[in-house]
């Protein structure tokens, strides 16, 4: 309903007698009820699966909760302890490095592949599927296990290096110098989902812009920077925000590659992995809940900064 028709219906309502008005209100009430009924499946899910556990975890973050015994109120103790927890600081460092290195790399790769694929070539859907494949697999336990084999001291990578005469005896996931880099590589490799979104975005850019630019003699690079990038910027922004949030929550790869320890020497101690160790390994669910809320704040602040910054570079067409 457009704004004008809403206004006109308001006028009509005012003109009616009180009785008629009551009738209309009753009808509207029934409409509302039906609306909530249709919303119910989603609403119940939201309350039970999202809001409920969130509130519970907010409460638990102010308690000392061992899972086995009932929670005991502890005020701000958990938050105070976080200030003096060297492993927490290490896990923040690891996670920030991971997010700020792997997300830009992954997006660049996804964009590059998407631009390459966006040429209406034959067999596009096949290529698209092949490039998407790592994303389907990358988050899985099987691939993380495979990576453990490939990057081990006796793994494929070292065997190939030895073929070329490099005396490689480093374990790429068991040496604290390289372990995080290897996991970042694994993440970058799963560029499929941002790539598919980029592809969809590229497909929506009207061809006439490029034709007009070509007529005016714009080079391919100019067309990319002046047409593709601005028109794609909302999509880039979308991918950026989602990938940053997703990267902060990374868990599986680090868990499997380091066997849940975050090792060697805490070099792959992701924030969520440490949270898990505290909650389920050391029975400090209150502390783990407080950690989860710190993560919410961090991700929230970063997302807010992202949105603020987006005003200066994202171009909305609508």
């Amino acid at each position, binding site marked *: 309903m457009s704004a004008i028709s809403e206004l006109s219906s308001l006028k009509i309502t005012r003109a009616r007698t009180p009785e008629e008005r009551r009738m209309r209100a009753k009808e509207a009430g029934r409409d509302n009820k039906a609306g909530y009924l249709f919303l119910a499946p989603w609403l119940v899910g939201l309350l039970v699966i999202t809001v409920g556990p969130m509130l519970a975890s907010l409460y638990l973050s102010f308690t000392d909760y061992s899972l086995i015994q009932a929670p005991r109120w502890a005020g701000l103790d958990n938050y105070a302890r976080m200030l003096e927890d060297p492993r927490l600081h290490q896990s923040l460092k690891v996670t920030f490095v991971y997010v700020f290195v792997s997300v830009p790399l992954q997006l660049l790769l996804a964009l590059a592949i998407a631009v390459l694929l966006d040429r209406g070539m034959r067999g596009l859907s096949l290529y698209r599927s092949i490039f998407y494949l790592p994303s389907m697999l990358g988050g899985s336990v099987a691939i993380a296990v495979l990576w453990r084999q490939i990057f081990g001291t006796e793994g494929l990578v070292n065997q190939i290096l030895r073929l070329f005469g490099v005396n490689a005896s480093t374990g790429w996931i068991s040496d604290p110098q390289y372990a995080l880099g290897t996991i970042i590589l694994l993440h970058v490799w799963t560029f499929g989902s941002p790539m598919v979104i980029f592809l969809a975005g590229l497909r929506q850019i009207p061809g006439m812009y490029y034709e007009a630019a070509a007529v005016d003699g714009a080079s391919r690079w100019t067309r990319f920077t002046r047409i593709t990038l601005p028109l794609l910027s*909302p999509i880039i922004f979308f991918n950026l925000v989602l990938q940053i949030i997703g990267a902060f929550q990374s868990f599986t790869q680090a868990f499997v590659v380091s066997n849940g320890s975050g090792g060697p020497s805490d070099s792959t101690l992701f924030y969520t992995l440490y949270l898990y160790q505290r*909650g389920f390994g050391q029975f400090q669910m209150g502390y783990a809940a407080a950690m989860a809320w710190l993560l919410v704040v961090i991700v929230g602040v970063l997302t807010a900064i992202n949105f603020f910054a987006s005003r200066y570079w994202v171009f909305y067409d609508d």
Partner: protein
Amino acid sequence: MGVNRRQFLIGGLGAMAATAGLAGLSGCGGSSSSGSATSGDLAFTWWGNDVRNKETTEAIAAYGKANPGVKISPQPGEWASYWDKLATQTAANNAPDVIQMDMAYISEYGNRGALLDLSKYGADTSKFAAGTVDSGKIDGTLYGINAGINTPTILVNPKLFAKAGIDVPDDKTWTWNDYKQIAGELTGKLGNGIVGTASPFNDATLSAWLRQQGKELFVDKGLGFTATDVVGWFQLMLDFQNAKAMPSASAITEEASQSLDQGSLVTGKAAMAYFWSNQVEAVNQAAGTEMKLLRYPSLAGKAAERKAWYKASMLWSASSRSKSPEAAVALINWWVNSTDCANICLAERGIPANTEVLGTVKPKLSKAQQSVATFIDEIKPELADTPIAPPPGGGTLGDVMSRAMSDLLFGRSNVNDAAKKFVDELTSNLSAS
């Protein structure tokens, strides 16, 4: 363009909400009803391997046949996920009635009131060998019954020793330095990337080493050692590394997360390794070689002073909220005291603590298990006090130590800093729990 600001914001909020939900999880599991010793519904959980799962299922069926009033619902699990599941089940107030417990967690659960005082419900340990009952006691309360005896050993691959032309050391007189020296020589003579020993540095050997100096890992609710005490331990490890007695830092890190059959002793990449005695059979089978059991070394070179101990390889506990505590304890009694059960499970969970049961099943044991039973019997004169169960938070010792050790092995720390970090972190884990 497909995306507008509002859709976007909602997507972002949803993703954030999922983060907050991370720590608000809960689990579900079996249930039970009331009954006496011979009737009731029991949920029964254990972690294990294929052999254990098969034997345990068989034994449960046998018990069900003899006690038609008891209905047992088995909940087998894997070590890696077992404790997460048990913790959430306990939090949700539906822990299984009978629980296979580990020394590392028994006080965590016992001190928090999640386990039954078994002696109040007629637990029978009258035929148990000396020193095998205490491991299940926390502050005098019997929270767990020894499910099998274990002891730390060094396993030796005699074939690799023969190949290197080195004699297997006399385990009654060898010292930690002998161990290092022999392993270093083996590495030199064997070549091909084969090393003298897999890294023997873990919580059990630290316990052995500390005990030989009159210290313990844990004393009543606290640490039994100081940073100064473990400096020597970390130095010993660096000496092993410098003597090339053990694998590279990378290889050690990798082995720590590998299963038994991928370990360097099994794959023939190391001539010696540390193992618990109940693992010998699995090692032999996986390696296809009969390993020799050695006593771990002592400081003085006298086996009689090495302060050995029997550890409960695992324990049987019951939930304090069980609705059929009598039936649960009756099942545990049958499990540890009856030859019916022992004939099925043999020594898979360790050598039976009940001496009569051991006498009956010993002839039926495999050759490897028989040699373990003999070994356990022979070291009796070398036993000292049984170490107490780790207090709450103490189960993290192994993890904390392996972090400190990899800092050292990769040259990112020195022995004094590593020792201090190790003790500080452990102390804070103990006080936080």
